[in-house]
């Protein structure tokens, strides 16, 4: 590895160590992206990348977990994203892309408002 990059990574680690303790806690949101063959072929990778990037940028890293799963079982609606939040009903977003993902981070994860236009209910 290049020395400069290592220094950057070390600095990153030191910055994050202090943050780790705050991570546990209530009000967590879980974003799950379907990453089976059908999802990947339909464009799940840029959707996942957009969630990881935008959640990080928005400083929501302590509250939001972005994870991957296999086939959600509705291949014709891929890329599919499910959002789980304590005490709320699961929200299923379908036919997602990177731009829609960025919008969901902004409006839903940050603002608390479901983006109805991309939910499965509106796309049947």
């Amino acid at each position: 590895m290049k020395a400069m990059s290592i220094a950057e990574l070390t600095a990153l680690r030191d910055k994050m160590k202090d943050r780790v303790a705050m991570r546990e806690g209530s009000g967590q949101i879980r974003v799950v992206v379907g990453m089976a063959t059908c999802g990947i072929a339909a464009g799940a990778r840029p959707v996942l990348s957009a969630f990881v990037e935008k959640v990080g940028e928005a400083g929501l890293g302590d509250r939001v977990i972005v994870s991957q799963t296999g086939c959600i079982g509705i291949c014709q609606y891929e890329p599919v994203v499910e959002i789980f939040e304590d005490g709320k009903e699961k929200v299923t977003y379908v036919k997602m892309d990177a731009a829609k993902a960025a919008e969901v981070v902004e409006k839903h994860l940050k603002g608390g408002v479901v983006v109805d236009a991309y939910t499965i209910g509106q796309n049947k």
Partner: protein
Amino acid sequence: MKELSLNVLDITQNSITAGAKHIEISLIENEEGILTLSIADDGCGMSQETVRRVIDPFYTTRTTRKVGMGIPLLKLAAEQAGGEVKIVSKTVEDDPDGHGTVISATFDTGSIDFTPVGDMVSTMCTIIQGHPEVDYLFVHKTASFDVSLDTAELRAVLGEDVPLSDFAVIGWISDYLQQQYQNENQ
């Protein structure tokens, strides 16, 4: 798949499902323009019958199981570019200490039906983000660049408190790989 890097992402999920702790992903293009992709894992492996079944979706056995599309799609991409797919696998019963699977595919990059490799940086970041507990060795070599990443080295720097899947770490990995692709291209 639109890019080979998407096949790589998909095929690597098989290794993770097989319980691999260590996965080596390499793409090496030689001077003749032949690209060899190899994904090697230390997972549970497959029986010879399973290898036959997954490589040929029309090969049926009495126990009809749901067939996947991941390996057939890789095979299609290789064969349409004048190459082939090979699988060597050992189950835990075959070899308790050396079990695992190596799936390799060749492609003639000069073929008009060669699928471009595409965005390997996104593929690696996605793989690591999804399963940060696995160790990955990634190598991508052509005449114009030589890119590599060993997550064991990153883990040594990060220690136990900071997972590889942390948003900032994934960002660093992305920049780190991107830099290697760019530097070497000049």
